[in-house]
């Protein structure tokens, strides 16, 4: 039964990883841009949520939209003012700029919040659970987290395939050089994509804050999890990213069941194994 339990917990944890990965996947899909500071952005969102809800005492019903909106706006402006200037054929500038951002964010968080690890208290929700008999219980919080992941991914899918904005994003993804000829504005579309990705990062950050303890240095590991979920699933397919997140989550919880020190390592090893066996991911739709 402990194994069934581990797998269920892993699947639910996979939802969080899919949330981490969705923003990364979206930015890469639209502009072939990989944000090394992605994990740090998630941690920034987590601290933002903590500040708004705990320090300022604002109700979650107001705080969540505020965090998401602030992240989205910051993402839009950051892309417009900084990241757009380093996009291009040369892969080095975007990697370096986001790597530099990652170092800056980690140290700025360290200066502001100290190195102590913190957590966003979720009140009674933290311990509430559904009992499925036979010693298997599913926490309400992880379940809600998983549901959020499905909701966010379905929402992104809807935006991509059912709205004029999505058509523009898909056109940019297919050929960014042609879009301006049709009257599109790449700088704006790229910024919209990053804004959208940052909104998802905001949601991911809030869940990270409730799910685990975090500290200013927690970002890079989240980047790695997000990246692994994207690659396991296969580039360019957002539902596959959810599958990738679930595989990673299950690998980690099953690994932890074998040995507590083996949790993260087991996730990395499963990722490398899939990279060896199927480098394009399990359900690829485009090549990187």
């Amino acid at each position, binding site marked *: 039964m402990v194994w069934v339990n581990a797998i269920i917990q892993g699947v639910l944890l996979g939802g969080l990883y899919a949330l981490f990965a969705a923003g990364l996947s979206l930015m890469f899909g639209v502009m072939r841009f*990989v944000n090394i500071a992605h994990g740090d952005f998630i941690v920034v969102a987590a601290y933002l949520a903590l500040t708004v809800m705990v320090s300022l005492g604002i109700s979650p019903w107001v705080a969540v939209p505020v965090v998401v909106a602030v992240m989205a706006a910051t993402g839009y402006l950051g892309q417009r003012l900084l990241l757009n200037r380093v996009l291009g054929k040369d892969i080095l500038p975007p990697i370096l700029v986001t790597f530099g951002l990652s170092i800056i964010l980690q140290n700025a968080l360290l200066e502001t919040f100290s190195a102590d690890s913190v957590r966003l208290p979720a009140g009674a929700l933290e311990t509430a659970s559904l009992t499925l008999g036979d010693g298997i219980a599913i926490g309400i919080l992880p379940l809600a987290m998983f549901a959020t992941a499905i909701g966010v991914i379905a929402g992104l899918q809807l935006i991509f395939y059912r709205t004029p904005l999505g058509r523009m994003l898909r056109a940019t993804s297919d050929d960014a050089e042609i879009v301006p000829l049709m009257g599109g504005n790449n700088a704006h579309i790229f910024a919209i994509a990053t804004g959208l990705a940052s909104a998802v990062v905001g949601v991911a950050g809030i869940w990270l804050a409730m799910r685990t303890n975090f500290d200013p240095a927690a970002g890079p*590991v989240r980047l790695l999890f997000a990246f692994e979920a994207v690659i396991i699933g296969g580039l360019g397919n957002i539902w596959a990213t959810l599958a990738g997140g679930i595989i990673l989550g299950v690998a980690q919880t099953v690994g932890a069941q074998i040995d507590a020190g083996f949790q993260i390592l087991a996730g*990395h090893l499963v990722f490398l194994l899939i990279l060896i066996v199927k480098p394009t991911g399990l359900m690829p739709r485009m090549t*990187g």
Partner: protein
Amino acid sequence: MASLTTDLPRRPAPGRFLPAAVIAAAVVLLAAAPWWAGRADLRLLMEALSYLALAQMWNLLAGYTGLVSVGQQAFVGLGGYLFFALAIFSGLPLLVAMPAAALATGLVAIPAGWIAFRLQGAYFAIGTWVIAEVFRLSAAQFPALGGGSGISLPVAVARSLSESREGREMAMYFLALGLGLSATFGVWALLRARWGMALTAIRDSGTAAESIGISTRRVKFLIYVGTAAMTGLTGAFLFLQKLRITPDAAFSVNDWTAFVIFIVVIGGIGTIEGPVIGTILFFALRQVAADWGSWYLMLLGAIAIAVMLVDKRGIWGALKARTGWALFPVERRLR
């Protein structure tokens, strides 16, 4: 039609004498350091020379073959750990254990590279980071090597270098000097050889290089493995100097990759002079800003971003474009 000669200029033209003189003076000055520098300065120089070696290797990898790795700490740590394991358990003499650790690091880089090369561009970068994390987490799983809390090098092993403290410091300094100089001159020699033509071609255009018959994948892979071995050797030295190794220190992304990347990028990527300039600046800045703590790291990150926005060729690259200066000439000209 002008004939393309692959020879470098045989006779130093006027003005070519100066670079050689500058290099010779710098080498002599460094070689004489134990006689003019104090103990603290010598330690600083040792560290700077180790970083110069790491920077030259990262530059060779990223600046010439375009393989932007953020996981070179994998090989620093692996070199350090293998060296400790060999020195403690096999009883090999220190000066044999170090190159043996480097060789073993190069061997491990073969399967690691085989996996990492399945990813391209920025994903390759993050993939190398995952591999480094696997090494870090694995190192903590070996009880014989102290697990998560690490292991110290027995005093007897360090003593074997020299009985007296002065002798040890002298020997350590010349090891560091050897690392820094052999990395710098090694890259220079490589770029002046046939290999260098291939590397420069790949740097300028991978597709064009492929079309004239360079097996870009093979060249890149060999450079990946070669730089891993040299990075491992530097790692072995760094932890010989520290006398203690832990998984977190050995596989630190900040210490062994972030700083190195900043050094190369600020100095000038894709040039041999860049890592030299970058190392000097990095350590000069650190002396000034040592007490700033995390503000110093933020400043470094900001400078790296500024370089990318203002002139991504870095200080030496920009200078070279304006003046045509070259301390380490590797360019071939039509005559």
